[in-house]
């Protein structure tokens, strides 16, 4: 099933790096011995349940807690009015108008989306907390609702945040090259009225939650939680709670999936903290699935309106202009960062040099968005892929040829994009060839005819995407020049303990990305010991002193930042071990080598110190040394090389690495029902040096599954009153085993010239599956009226509409030729 080609220099690999070492995490997880936040218990803890708004937009007239508080076993409550006294609004990333949003842990004065937490109730048991929440009487005065981002920006729309003077959170014009000249030079201009990227998220199987304790003596909180970006959570929580960050200890061990959706749980964590202090007991909060769907972290929905593409007669793409309207939902919890993150891949994988994109973000009466696997780049990549296929469709180019012609070529690497991003390495044509071969593209016409004989429409689609990783947080200044964030960092410590144990501590918060395993592989090769001899602590603890401001697990960066820190710390320790051995043997350091779990004199294997001796000397047996022995406890902060981008031109390198994924699929559509079946699928990945190929392939598979789900089944659908119609796994169909197509994977390695190990961040997949299924459907529909696919989400009823009325979508695309 797996075709793997490797061009990476084999010398860059040690005995562990590059091998599919079985995961260290598995032993506990297959025995049910993982520790997820909900497994942590404390005597006398109170269970928290949120009273949530049944309205999408309403004024809170009054709250009556008396019936709930009278219920035996209820410990207490927290309301928005208390929160507004005890805390300040969360810091806003946005400049005005979005910067005027006032966001608290609970709704204050009004509610802005269905499911918004209004009151928190704490009781002796889960069941009792739920019962008590039912007894809280909230009197609402419903307000007019707006659920469409375009309508939210129109004159007279109901306003969510009065302080903002409207629903606009951010707008900016992003323009590079000479767009007017490109359109003057074009032989064809293809106009596309409207494209729509749908709202969904990756719905990790474990919902949000925490066990929070308050230490009254020290004023410190400890949160056992599944937040995946503790650095960000602390920066949000500390100022709001008017405490220093050291008062906020955030601990994670095992996390049941995250995909970005667990970055913005800081409001709920604040509610837990306030209640732990108020009620003098540990607070246990476990979100229910319906609550997660209603309130947590939807992906960014985005419209692209009035798109125009400048094309030469030979199919050369010169540039495009478009207006993007992004839907942030009701609050800006991580937004409007989506307003800049897309520009990491503004040009997609293509060489067009003239781009104008007007980005506007609106707030609506829907759940707040936050990062979701492929955050904001996936939307842009889907747009560029849709544009390519629509151009090919309308001008009669072959989708493969037009890609081959316009791809950034391997000899162009490193390639500076029109907006100053640097694609570090890659071979896009080769990845596409591999994907097409795996899918059996050469037999496609034969298969099309065979499918037609069964009454099916068959199509082939390509989705070419980039997985940009290791953010330069300086890009935040492109949307708010006053922000003081830039660069990136990650921390690791590697130490040798008294009995020679190699102990690694990470700043990250893995949710399945196998950091314990890959970190151990890197350390084992540097210290020349077995992978099993390296103990990597599970999870994150902000009291370990192994984190920095950007620590966490998000945005495709561990293989660069996390392992960069691990390598740095392990190199330091290796140097200290050599130095200590040279002190013991009274020889030059260059006479010492680390090998087979010893520090020894190179030409005298008898003179060898085991790790145990090296660990013991500084820690427990240090008398008589003429100078201080090295500490054997090494902390390294990896900092990627970035400059602050040019704010005027919106120009600069926004991420360090660009992994490539090219997906290809064959779909069959039932003409009667519009049901799409994916019958063949291939995903080719190039993420530079792979520390552990099996783990990389696992990430490719997972990202593929998310994209297939989003393309065909998964959607957060709201009615016009702001009711979420898909609030659980009944209505929100997550693919199960029978839904998955046969999959072939392929890989090759174009090492990054910019990273310590030649690795690139990967794992998000850039939504490749969404792009290729859209393309496959459009290809299949060519034989039945030639509808154009204009939505990222194509359930059977939408496909059926395209079959029934192909003119409708065709009429939204026009070609003007010279």
């Amino acid at each position, binding site marked *: 099933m797996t075709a793997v080609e490797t061009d990476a220099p084999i010398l860059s690999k040690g005995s562990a790096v590059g091998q599919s070492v079985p995961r260290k995490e598995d032993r*506990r997880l*297959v*025995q049910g*011995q993982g520790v997820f936040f909900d497994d942590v218990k404390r005597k006398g803890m109170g269970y928290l349940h949120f009273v949530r708004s049944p309205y999408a937009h309403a004024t809170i007239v009054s709250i009556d807690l008396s019936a709930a508080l009278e219920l035996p076993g209820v410990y207490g409550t927290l309301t928005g009015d208390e929160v507004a006294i005890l805390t300040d609004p969360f810091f806003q990333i946005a400049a005005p108008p979005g910067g005027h949003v006032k966001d608290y842990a609970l709704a204050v004065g009004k509610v802005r989306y269905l499911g918004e937490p209004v009151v928190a109730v704490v009781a002796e048991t889960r069941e009792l907390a739920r019962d008590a929440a039912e007894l809280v009487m909230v009197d609402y005065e419903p307000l007019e609702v707006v659920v469409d981002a375009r309508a939210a920006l129109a004159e007279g729309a109901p306003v969510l945040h009065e302080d903002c003077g409207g629903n606009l959170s951010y707008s900016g014009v992003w323009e590079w090259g000479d767009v007017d000249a490109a359109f003057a030079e074009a032989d064809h201009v293809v106009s596309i009225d409207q494209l729509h990227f749908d709202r969904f998220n990756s719905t990790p199987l474990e919902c949000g939650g925490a066990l929070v304790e308050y230490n009254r003596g020290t004023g410190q909180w400890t949160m056992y939680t599944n937040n995946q970006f503790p650095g960000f959570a602390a920066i949000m929580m500390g100022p709001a709670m008017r405490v220093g960050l050291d008062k906020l200890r955030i601990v994670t061990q095992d996390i049941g999936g995250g995909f970005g959706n667990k970055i913005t749980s800081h409001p709920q964590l604040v509610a837990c903290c306030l209640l732990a202090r108020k009620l003098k007991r540990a607070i246990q909060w476990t979100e229910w699935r319906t609550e997660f769907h209603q309130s947590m972290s939807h992906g960014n929905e985005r419209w692209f309106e009035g798109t125009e593409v400048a094309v030469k007669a030979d199919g050369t793409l010169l540039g495009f202009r478009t207006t993007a309207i992004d839907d942030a939902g009701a609050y800006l919890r991580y937004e409007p960062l989506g307003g800049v993150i897309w520009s990491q891949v503004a040009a997609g994988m293509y060489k067009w040099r003239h781009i104008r994109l007007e980005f506007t973000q609106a707030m609506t009466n829907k759940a707040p968005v936050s990062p979701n696997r492929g955050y904001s780049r996936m939307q842009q990549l889907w747009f560029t892929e849709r544009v390519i296929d629509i151009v090919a469709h309308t001008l009669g180019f072959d989708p493969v040829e037009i890609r081959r012609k316009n791809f950034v070529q391997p000899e162009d690497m490193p390639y500076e994009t029109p907006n100053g991003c640097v694609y570090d390495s890659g071979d896009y044509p080769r990845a596409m060839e591999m994907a097409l071969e795996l899918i059996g593209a050469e037999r496609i016409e034969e298969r099309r005819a065979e499918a037609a004989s069964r009454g099916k429409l068959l199509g082939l689609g390509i989705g070419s995407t980039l997985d940009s990783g290791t953010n330069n947080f300086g890009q935040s200044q492109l949307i708010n020049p006053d922000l003081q964030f830039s660069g990136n960092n990650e921390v690791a410590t590697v130490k040798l303990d008294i009995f020679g144990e190699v102990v690694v501590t990470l700043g990250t918060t893995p949710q*399945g990305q196998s950091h314990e395993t890959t970190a151990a592989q890197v350390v084992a090769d540097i210290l020349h010991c077995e992978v099993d001899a390296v103990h990597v602590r599970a999870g994150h603890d902000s009291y370990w002193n192994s984190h920095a401001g950007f620590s966490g697990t998000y945005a495709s960066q561990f293989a660069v930042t996390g392992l960069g820190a691990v390598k740095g710390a392990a190199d330091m320790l290796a140097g200290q071990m050599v130095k200590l051995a040279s002190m013991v043997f009274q020889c030059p350091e260059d006479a010492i080598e680390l090998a087979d779990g010893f520090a020894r004199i190179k030409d005298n294997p008898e003179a060898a110190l085991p790790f145990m001796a090296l660990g013991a000397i500084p820690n427990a047996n240090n008398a008589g040394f003429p100078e201080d022995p090295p500490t054997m406890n090494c902390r390294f902060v990896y900092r990627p090389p970035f400059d602050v981008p040019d704010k005027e031109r919106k120009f600069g390198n926004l991420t360090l690495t660009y992994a490539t994924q090219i997906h290809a699929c064959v779909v069959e559509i039932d003409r009667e029902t519009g049901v799409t079946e994916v019958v063949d699928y291939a995903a080719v990945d190039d993420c530079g040096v792979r520390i552990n190929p099996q783990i990389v392939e*696992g990430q490719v598979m997972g990202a593929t599954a998310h994209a297939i789900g989003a393309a065909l089944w998964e959607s957060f659908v709201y009615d016009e009153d702001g009711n979420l119609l898909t609030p659980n796994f009944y209505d929100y169909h997550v693919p*199960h085993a029978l839904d998955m197509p046969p999959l072939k994977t392929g890989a090759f390695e174009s090492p990054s010239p910019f990273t310590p190990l030649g690795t690139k961040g990967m794992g998000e997949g850039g939504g490749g599956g969404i792009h290729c299924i859209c393309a496959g459907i459009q290809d299949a529909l060519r034989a039945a009226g030639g509808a154009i696919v204009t939505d990222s989400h194509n359930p059977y009823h939408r496909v059926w509409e395209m079959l029934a009325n192909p003119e409708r979508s065709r009429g939204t695309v026009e070609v003007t030729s010279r």
Partner: protein
Amino acid sequence: MSVSTTSTHRTISVEINGTTYERDVPASLLLVHFLRDDLDLTGTHIGCDTGSCGACTVQLGSAAIKSCCMLAVQADGASITTVEGLASEDGELTPLQRSFHEHHALQCGYCTPGMLMSATALLEQNPSPSEHEVKVALQGNLCRCTGYWNIVEAVVAVGEGGAR
């Protein structure tokens, strides 16, 4: 409501992983919360509130059941196996657990206990299931990390004698 009465509480006796537990439980208590909160058998997980995800799957007798869809009082007198009951006392993994490890059939590990219990029940009834039979048996278990391919492969491999 925290007051125990005969109408709201009942004493149950359940054998779990070979040990018999007698507990006084509220009638409204779900079996999964009984396992997790009362007995601290936290390997059984919860991923939804509609009986859709299968993270809470345990074996009741020979059948794989969703412990969120059953009250604790309904399990009175039953014999239950949870994920903690799979490996031997000295930590020797079952062939299925080993196969999950070897085939990278888990990432975050949250769905894994439920997957293992559904697959264990399948393999007891059908020691050499086909790929399709495995998918049918696992269709009530959601995984959001792996896309299922490696999970299906791991279960099929056990039926084929553990060969990859």
